[in-house]
């Protein structure tokens, strides 16, 4: 009887070791999958941010302008960043300036080397000080920072891939 109890105890300890080992194996593999998803997220982010930076104006007042005749105070107020006028908050095709993307969220399908990934992306636009980019100014400046937070829709275990990418647009007189 005593030996049977000891044997059962040994089995229980073995089971616990097995479960821990399997969990450890899964965690290691999970990191690999997450890294692959992060690579795809960075690829999407680089392409999307580049597209936004090259197709939208710095600010609403700059749309259609042919020369640089603006002061920082002419730009959209901090409290009014986001879509305005005829722009729809859920349709980025209607966005014509950078701060329209503030608060915008989208779910995208990204194809990379014949593999398909789905991401949830949210954007934040804020003014930054060109001389001290880490300082958030209290009024409009000549520089805006677009931040895209990209999260994989697919979960690997209890984790998702999270990538944050930023681009800064500085308005100059090189129209």
């Amino acid at each position, binding site marked *: 009887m005593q030996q049977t109890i*000891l*044997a059962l105890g040994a089995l229980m300890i073995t089971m616990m070791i097995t479960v821990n080992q*399997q969990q450890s*194996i899964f965690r290691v*593999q999970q990191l*690999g999958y997450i890294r692959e998803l992060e*690579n795809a997220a960075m*690829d999407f982010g680089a392409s999307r941010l*580049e597209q936004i930076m090259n197709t939208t104006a710095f600010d609403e007042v700059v749309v259609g302008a042919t020369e640089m005749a603006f002061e920082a105070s002419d730009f959209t107020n901090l409290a009014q960043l986001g879509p305005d006028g005829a722009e729809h908050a859920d349709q980025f095709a209607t966005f014509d300036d950078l701060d329209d993307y503030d608060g915008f969220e989208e779910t995208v399908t990204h194809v990379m*080397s014949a593999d398909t990934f789905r991401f949830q992306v949210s954007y934040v636009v804020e003014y930054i000080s060109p001389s001290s980019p880490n300082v958030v100014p209290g009024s409009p400046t000549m520089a805006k920072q677009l931040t895209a937070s990209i999260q994989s829709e697919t979960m690997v275990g209890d984790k998702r891939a999270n990538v944050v990418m930023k681009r800064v647009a500085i308005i100059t007189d090189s129209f």
Partner: protein
Amino acid sequence: MQFIFDHISSVLVASVVLVIFAMLQLRGSQTLSETSIHQMVYSDALDAGAMLQRDLENMRTDSQTAEALTRGVLAGGAYSCAMTASGDTTLTLTFPTLADPDGVAALADPMDAPVQIVTYVLEAVGDSASVDKGTSIEYYPLYRLNRIVDGTFTGGTKGNVVHFNVGLSTQGSSVFNTGSAVCPSDLAKIRFELKTAIDGVTHVASDQRSVSQLNLSRFATTVDLTNWD
């Protein structure tokens, strides 16, 4: 009798424990191999991607290359910017780029920076890497991505490449041309995709089979050619 039964159960339990530990050991070594292979294949993809990205970011235009020729700082021939492709695979990519981007800051005139015509050539190595996808095993032909300057293979040559695709896009367009082409004069963006693979862990038994696909890695990015604007 009680004594014998006690011993039988001990023997049974000991056998079960031994089998479990043997399986754990096997799975543990397999995972170790899988993660090492993933690390190798991942760094292969990143290294090749970083090398190409650096060259593309420092790509020179037609006029900049002509200026380099005039100043005698051009290596590898006259201006050439083109690619050849077969299906969705890019076979060659040739373009002028800075020979030493880090050294430009030290020059009095940045236009004196040496320029070289670099050619990336995808060369089949006659081998393949298999990726176990659970329901099937996919075999990818292996290539080497050669980086050639002035007919010489440079240290940047990368192996284990199973897919290489480059797309050229012009100003204001979001369409990437992945076929054979000469770089358009209003080239604005270049996108490339790389996939690398190394043969995975050997199939041991169906319950120990590795279908993690971690022996395959991808890298892709879009390079904005601000220099060409």
